C-alpha cells in the first residue's frame, strides 16, 4: 500500500475527471520537495476549511475532513495496535452499490471504523464505507456531526436504499446494541440480526450482500459488567465495566491490543431474486437474513481457530 498512501498524503490531488486516477506528483527534487508538498497540501487544507470551500454530500459526508482529520489518527491503531489482517477484499466490488454486513462487538464501535479504514486503504478502488448508525449516534452532541461528516447516516431503509442506488458501498451492523453491548462471556455468538431491514434494502436495490466477519474487536474492551442503572440515567443502552474501566479512569479508554482479522466473504447476489416484490416476501427476507447470519457465524469460528492467540 505504500504507493497509494503516498498519493493520499500529498493530498491535494483533486481528480477532475472521475474516470482518470489522479496523476502522482513528480517528486524528483529530493526530500525537501516532499516536505514542501506536504506543507503546501496542509496550507491548502487549512485555507479550504477556513473559507468553507469543500464539498459535502446530501448525507453530510465530508470526504475532505474524513481523509485528512478523522481517519489518520486511526491508522496507527489499525497498523500497529490491532495489526489488522484483511482477507477477501476482492469480494468487494470496485464500483456500484454493495452492502457489507458485519458482526458487531467490543462496546465501542471500533470494528466499524477499522472496516471503513480497511476498505479505504487496502481495497484497490479505495472505497469509502458509508456506515449505517443507530439513532442514538445522531442525538449525541459531538458524536452526531462527526458521524455524518465521516459518512454515516441513520440506519433506516430510506437512507440505505438511497445510498445503494447512488452506487455507494454501505456498511451495516444488524446486531446493533445487542451485539456491541453484549457481555464478554457471549463473545463471537451472533445476536439476532435486527428485523432483516438490510436484506430488504439490498433486494429493492439489487445490491449484493457481502458478509463480513470481524475477529478481534470482542477483546478490545471486554465487557465484564453493565452498570444498567447509571446507563438508564444517562440515556445510554449500556454502560460497560471492563477490566480497565472505570478502574483506571481515562486509561480505560485504551483498547486492549488484540489481533484482528477482517474477512469479506463471497457476495450474495440479490439482483435476480425479484427486486421490490421479493422485498415484500417476509419468508424470503428471513431466510436470506439467516443465511447471511450463518455465513458470518461459521466464518467467525473458522477465523478463531486460525488465530494463533488473542493478542499475537
Amino acid at each position, binding site marked *: 500500500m505504500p504507493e497509494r498512501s503516498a498519493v493520499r498524503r500529498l493530498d491535494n*490531488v483533486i481528480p477532475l475527471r472521475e474516470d482518470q486516477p489522479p496523476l502522482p506528483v513528480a517528486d524528483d527534487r529530493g526530500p525537501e520537495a516532499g516536505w*514542501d508538498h506536504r506543507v503546501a497540501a496542509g496550507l491548502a487544507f487549512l*485555507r479550504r476549511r477556513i473559507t468553507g470551500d469543500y464539498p459535502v454530500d446530501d448525507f453530510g459526508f465530508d470526504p475532505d475532513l474524513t481523509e485528512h482529520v478523522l481517519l489518520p489518527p486511526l491508522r496507527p491503531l489499525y497498523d500497529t495496535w490491532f495489526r489488522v489482517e484483511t482477507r477477501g477484499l476482492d469480494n468487494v466490488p470496485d464500483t456500484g452499490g454493495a452492502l457489507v454486513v458485519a458482526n458487531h462487538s467490543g462496546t465501542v464501535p471500533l470494528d466499524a471504523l477499522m472496516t471503513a479504514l480497511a476498505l479505504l486503504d487496502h481495497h484497490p478502488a479505495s472505497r469509502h464505507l458509508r456506515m449505517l448508525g443507530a439513532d442514538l449516534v445522531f442525538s449525541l*452532541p459531538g458524536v*452526531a456531526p462527526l458521524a455524518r461528516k465521516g459518512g454515516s447516516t*441513520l440506519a433506516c431503509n430510506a437512507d440505505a436504499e438511497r445510498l445503494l442506488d447512488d452506487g455507494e458501498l454501505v456498511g451495516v451492523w444488524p446486531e446493533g446494541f445487542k451485539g456491541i453491548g453484549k457481555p464478554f462471556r457471549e463473545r463471537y455468538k451472533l445476536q439476532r440480526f435486527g428485523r432483516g431491514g438490510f436484506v430488504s434494502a439490498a433486494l429493492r436495490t439489487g445490491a449484493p450482500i457481502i458478509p463480513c466477519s470481524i475477529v478481534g474487536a470482542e477483546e478490545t474492551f471486554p465487557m465484564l459488567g453493565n452498570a444498567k442503572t447509571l446507563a438508564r440515567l444517562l440515556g445510554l443502552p449500556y454502560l460497560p465495566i471492563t477490566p480497565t474501566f472505570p478502574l483506571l479512569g481515562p486509561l480505560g479508554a485504551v483498547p486492549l491490543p488484540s489481533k484482528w482479522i477482517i474477512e469479506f466473504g463471497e457476495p450474495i447476489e440479490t439482483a435476480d431474486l425479484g427486486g421490490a416484490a421479493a422485498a415484500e416476501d417476509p419468508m424470503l427476507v428471513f431466510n436470506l437474513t439467516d443465511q447471511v447470519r450463518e455465513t458470518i457465524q461459521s466464518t467467525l469460528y473458522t477465523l478463531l481457530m486460525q488465530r494463533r492467540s488473542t493478542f499475537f
Partner: protein
Amino acid sequence: MSSPVGRPRVVLVTGVSRYLGSRLAGILAADPSIERVIGVDSVAPRREQRPVLGRTEFVRADIRNPLIAKVIASADVDTVVHLNVIATPDGAGGRTAMKEINVIGTMQLLAACQKAPSMRSLVVKSTTAVYGSSPRDPAHFTEELAPRSLPRAGYAKDAVEVEGYVRGFGRRRPDVALTLLRFTNFIGPAIDTPLTRYLSLPVVPTVLGFDPRLQLCHEEDGLEVLRRSVVDGPSGTFNVGGTGVLLLSQALRRLGRPALPVPSPAVSVVARAFRGAGVVDFSPEQMRFLEHGRVADVTRLREAFGWSPRPTAEAFADFVGAARPPLVDPRRAAAAEQRLLHLLTRGRGVSPYPQGVLGA
C-alpha cells in the same frame, strides 16, 4: 397528479404586502394572459413595494374576516394563491395573533373558496418544517413520509394545521386543482426571514456539538415555482428547494462569520436574550432545527415541473455576495496561503496541485 385546469383568468394573492406576496403579484400582473390580479392583505403595501405590484388591484381585507368571501365571489376569482402563512410573530403582534392569522385565516379563506363556484385552482405555500426535526429523521424527506416527531409549537405546528385544512378542502372540492408547496428555508439577497437574520448576526450562536445540514431555496426560484404553479403547474404536494446541502458550520465559514457554540442547556437562555433584544426570533422548533437540520427530497418537483431550483450552494453564494464583507475574505485567505507557502518553502515555488491536473 397533473390536472391541467387551463390558464388562470383572475388570480387572488393573499399576504401581498409581504415580500414574496408583492413580488409574485407583480410577476403575475406582468403576464398579459392573466386578466386581473387581486392582492389581499390586512396592511397596505409599503411605499417602496408599490412599483413592484404593477397593475395588481389591492384590497385591504383581513382573511380572518368573512369579507374575503365577497371579494372572491364578486371578482369571479378562479385561482387563489395563499401566501399568508407567516413564520414569525414580529409584525403580526405576537404569537397569538400569528396563530390566528395562520390557522383561522386559512380556515376562513378556504371556507370562502369552497363557496365560490368560479374556483379552479388553489396554490398554498407551506414549509418543510412540517416534517419536524429529530435525530431519527431519514437523510431526506419525501412528500409521503410522516414526520418522526410532530412539530409541537410555532410556525411548524401552524403549517401542519394549515395543511390539514387544505387537505380537507381538497376532499370537499375535488374539482379544484390543489398545489401544496413545501418550501425549504428561503435565502437570497433581498428576502428577510428568521434564517437570513440569524445568519446576519455579527457572531452566530450555534448549538455546541451539533452541525445541521441546511437546504436552501433561492427567493427567485421560490417565486418561479409559485408562478409556474399558478400559470400551468401540476397539482399535488411538492417539496421545493435546491439540491445538495451545506453544513451550518460550512455556511458560516463561507459567510466569514464566527460561530459561537452554546451548550444546548443554555441555548434557550441565549435564545430568549436574542428574542428580548428583538434581533432574531428563535422558537424551540428552530432550536431543534439548529441541532438536527432537515433535508427534503426534491425529485418529484423536478419531474413534475421539468425544472429545478438552483442548488443550495449556489443559492447561498448569492446571499454571501450580498451580505456584509466576511471576516476572512477567500481571496485574502488564498493570498495568505501563497505567502506562507513561499515563506515555509523558502521560495522553492511548489504548487500543491500536480501539474497537468488543474492546469489542463
